[in-house]
């Protein structure tokens, strides 16, 4: 117990502060009553309401579709953009492009949202699914570029030379060497864009319309009339899903590592025979 220090206490405190509100929310999702003032008994009542609330379910689906589609398209565009920045010959061009990308990354969502609203109304573009999707793609692209570019920069220059040396064309070099080597970065970019899209409020709030809504906007508008415990139930379900994803990711990583170790041992045993 020598390791017990003040730093551990601090860490525990930080985690409690971070997780307590979530568990508070989860706890009251099982309340019989309609408020979070006091717990009057256990029930699945709010979960039942949630599942029969077809408006809420369709909004969940909308949100997922927007997130999946926008991050997919942003990943494709962003990866091509990162490749473009990488292959820029002049340092000034490279840095210029990267700066333009980073400005979008750090500028506040409110400004991006407002400017998209002005842009869409100027073009006469009707607000709804299309406008939300386009703006989500737009703010996800810089994220993908930022996740993919370091992976490309990590590639040894000689690896590309080696591909040409072995007879590959530019296209074959891209598809058989560069893309497979930066796949982890592409996946990271995709998931990053996905989570950004899932919980975006500010941009969506500006550019949505026509009765189209996403989760964050819907929860916000409901919360203005006092939080309904149905929202608690929904949050609980989403928390559990993300927990399962994290655990699944961890287990998958461990499984792959074990399998690789076993393969090495098997190969070594075979060679040593």
């Amino acid at each position, binding site marked *: 117990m020598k390791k017990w220090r003040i730093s551990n206490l601090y860490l525990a405190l930080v985690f409690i502060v971070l997780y307590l509100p979530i568990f508070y929310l989860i706890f009251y999702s099982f309340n019989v009553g309609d408020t979070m003032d006091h717990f009057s008994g256990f029930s699945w009542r709010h979960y039942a309401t949630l599942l029969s609330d077809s408006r809420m379910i369709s909004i969940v689906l909308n949100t997922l579709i927007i997130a999946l589609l926008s991050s997919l398209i942003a990943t494709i565009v962003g990866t091509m953009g990162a490749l473009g920045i990488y292959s820029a010959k002049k340092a000034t061009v490279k840095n210029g492009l990267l700066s333009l990308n980073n400005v979008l990354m750090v500028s506040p969502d409110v400004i991006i949202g407002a400017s998209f609203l002005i842009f869409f109304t100027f073009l006469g573009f009707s607000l709804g699914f299309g406008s939300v999707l386009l703006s989500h793609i737009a703010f996800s692209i810089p994220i993908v570029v930022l996740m993919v570019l370091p992976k490309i920069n990590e590639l*040894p220059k*000689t*690896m590309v*030379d*080696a*591909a*040409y*040396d*072995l*007879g*590959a*064309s530019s296209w*074959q070099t891209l598809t*058989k*060497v560069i893309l*497979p*080597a930066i*796949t982890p970065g592409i996946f990271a970019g995709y998931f990053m864009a996905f989570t950004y899209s899932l919980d975006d409020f500010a941009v969506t709030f500006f550019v949505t319309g026509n009765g189209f809504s996403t989760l964050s906007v819907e929860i916000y508008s409901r919360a203005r009339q006092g939080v309904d415990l149905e929202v608690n139930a929904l949050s609980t379900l989403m928390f559990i899903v993300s927990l399962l994803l994290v655990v699944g990711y961890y287990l998958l990583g461990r499984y792959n590592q074990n399998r*690789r170790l076993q*393969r*090495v041992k098997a*190969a070594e045993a*075979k*060679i040593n025979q």
Partner: protein
Amino acid sequence: MADNVIEFKKVNKSFDETRVLNEIDFEIEAGKFYTLLGPSGCGKTTILRLIAGFADVTSGDILFEGQRVNGLPANERQVNTVFQDYALFPHLNVFENVAFGLEIRKLKKNEIKIKVDEALKLVHLSGYGRREIAELSGGQQQRVAIARAIVNEPKVLLLDEPLSALDHKLRKEMQGELRDLQRRLGITFIFVTHDQEEALAMSDQIFVMNAGKILQSGSPVDIYDEPINHFVADFIGESNIIPGKMRQDYIVNFDGQDFECVDAGMKPNEPVEVVIRPEDLDIAPIDTGQVNVTVDTQLFRGVDYQITAHDAMNNEWKINSIHPTKIGQTVALAFDPEDIHIMRYGETEDDFDARLETYD
């Protein structure tokens, strides 16, 4: 002439304002082991990149089997490269790495399997096909890189300091194996290194380079025994270089004395540099040799003692001897006329070769 696989004709290469290759001319014959030797930044890797097609000449011509290949992209050249950092594909396993070039050429599956297995066997990696690259040691990765190149049966194999990342023992081992591999495959190897020992041990022919120029080319023995100038003498092996004067043919004056030597063809009283290799000097009792020196330092190196000493004219002498002496002791150095090699200042390789012809 028909036997030349590669020819460089007045090749110049500049990056921005800096000229890295200066009027390079050479011929590479088929089936030999060549080494480009020089300090880092001398342009040796640039020559390799020009042959491979990763870079283009600023002026001059590169011929491959008599055909001009300037501007031909790397993927259409019949050469393959082993890179300094191996440049293996981390997402592919050993078999897939070696098979890469064959798959690009769309060979049949079973044909690829036969060739890859054969290549892995050549580099002593049979049974490693399913391993991931990250699971291999440096030496094994090196072998995979060689297998990946030779499996394509190139006319010329380019090796860019491939052994520099290996430890001393492994490097020695790989030197032998590479030499052996070259003899068995019979293809031309062009090997780039800054390690003179490596160059001497492996090559049929060495090009010594400095500052974008080829200073001297020849067999390892020629270059070691008859270096053309101060740089080559100093770079290849250890040497004592002493300023002197050529009295007449076969008589050189240095250290205040006349010595008999085996070089000729200079003007009378022409200033020259005299090279004597440390291992050609024998230590003898005082006044029984050609020069008396006083020992300054002595270092035991396992095979021999490395001794430094100075003579009456304050010239430094390096001596490698299997017999120890004492620091501060005065001894004589004994050497024969054949141990003395004379270098003229600023002599070109052509003039040097022509002069040797006259009395060899």
